[in-house]
């Protein structure tokens, strides 16, 4: 009986005491500075190597298509046109000579999975991931980014030129084929082996 009463009163005391402790804790939290970051007004600094929107410095692009091949979701589309020896496309910032017109360099950022795999193979480091993450659009079409700097007119001119050069090259080749074949280079194996072991 006495122990039951004791338990009864200790329970009441403990209930009140623990409630008081809890109330004190929550009251102190009332004056703790809040952890909320009010996003559009206040922005956190992203880590240095954050991967967000892709950017292509088209002036440095040599049209090698390696990024497009590395992309696991096929969000990069590149089309190139061969340049003729008479035009100088300039050099990249790294000093590589550009040999191709990049007529199309499209990134469908809606498809992009931000893996960053396209960044590593780029020989001229022209495709990079930036820290821009606010690029929501109302129209999905607007998420298709065109990085190529060529106008349609320029593309037509370049295409025609390339075609002409190709035709000329083809003509040259045909002419070369018509001419007698030069002797085979030394060291090359004969066209067909006379014997096959085992037969």
């Amino acid at each position: 009986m006495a122990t039951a009463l004791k338990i009864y009163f200790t329970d009441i005391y403990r209930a009140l005491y623990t409630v008081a402790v809890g109330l004190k804790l929550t009251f102190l939290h009332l004056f703790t500075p809040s952890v909320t970051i009010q996003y559009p007004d206040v922005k956190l600094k992203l880590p240095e190597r954050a991967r967000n929107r892709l950017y292509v410095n088209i002036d440095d692009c040599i049209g090698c298509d390696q990024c497009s091949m590395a992309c696991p979701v096929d969000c990069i589309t590149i089309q190139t046109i061969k340049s003729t020896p008479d035009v100088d496309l300039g050099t990249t910032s790294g000093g590589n000579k550009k040999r191709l017109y990049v007529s199309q360099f499209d990134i469908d950022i809606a498809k992009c999975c931000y893996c960053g795999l396209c960044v590593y193979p780029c020989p001229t480091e022209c495709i990079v991931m930036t820290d821009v993450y606010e690029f929501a659009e109302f129209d999905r079409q607007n998420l298709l980014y065109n990085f190529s700097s060529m106008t349609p007119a320029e593309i037509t001119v370049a295409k025609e030129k390339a075609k002409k050069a190709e035709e000329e090259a083809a003509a040259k080749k045909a002419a070369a084929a018509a001419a007698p074949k030069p002797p085979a280079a030394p060291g090359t194996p004969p066209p067909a082996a006379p014997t096959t072991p085992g037969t």
Partner: protein
Amino acid sequence: MQELLKSFLGDNALVYIIMGVPPLIFILLYALVTLYMEMKVSAHIQDRVAYMRTGWHGVLQPFADILKLIQKEDIIPAQADKLLFTLAPYLVFTGTYAGFAAIPFSEGYIGSNINLGVFYIVAASSIVVAGLLMSGWASNNKWSLLGAMRSAAQIVSYEIPSALAILVAVMITGSLNLNDVSKFQEGGLFNWVVFGGPLPLLQKLAIIPFTATAFFILLTAGIAEANRTPFDLPEAESELVQGFNTEYSGMKFAIFYVAEYANMFLVSAVAVCLFLGGWQSPFGSALSGPIWGVFWIVIKGMAFVFFQIWLRWTLPRLRVDQLMYVSWKVMTPMLFVCVFAVGLILVL
């Protein structure tokens, strides 16, 4: 105020209708303020900031919320009892609003200056129980029904400790009319009933433990009657969706919401009137008068509304058996002791 109106309009039933308007206006304004306060206090206790974008620190958000609720489609479930479903929120609000009639907002204003005061408030809150049961049954939804049953069982059980706690105060003040009870506690902080009222010092010292206990229990029982955490089993989200107001939307839900908030203030105001001097200033005659009276009772009431919100983010929900244990095995016996002891002290 009643006399003033009577001198203008004559002794007319219109006087009583006009007398009923201020509490309604008060409830609506108070609901807006409390909505804001609840969100802000909740957020800051959890180290968040809550509304920040509508107006300065989001002060316009309650208005936006109310506007949203008004615009929302008023859905009545196809299988619901449409008449009772529509009637229930109004009944719940009526019960709470009726209770406000006996709350003296200042020396000069009390909705109905009847002798029965607190007894009437206790009776009026029983209409709320019927309204809750009605909403639960009419929704034709098991969550609603279970929530309503829990709510009714809870309110009915906690009416007993709260009535006994009221009795402790009433024994000291000798009146059920809350205006007279408030008048009785004149003369500053230490003449409040929680400190024994204006009794001789020796009696006062003997009575303080019992009045303090009764006050504390009245407050706790009040939280239970308002269905607030930690006694919010009727609305237990994790098990009952939203309890009795699961099926309600739009304006009807808003009425439930306002009724719940009004009930929070009602229980606080009853406790304040009985134990903390009602509209009396804590500094004796300084800062007192009819206008200051309104200020004091609202401030005191809001302090306990704040306490309820504060408690909400401190304690988890009780189990049903714990709830009943607290009511029947802890509060009720303790209050019997209090009533007996206070009676004894007053007689001696």
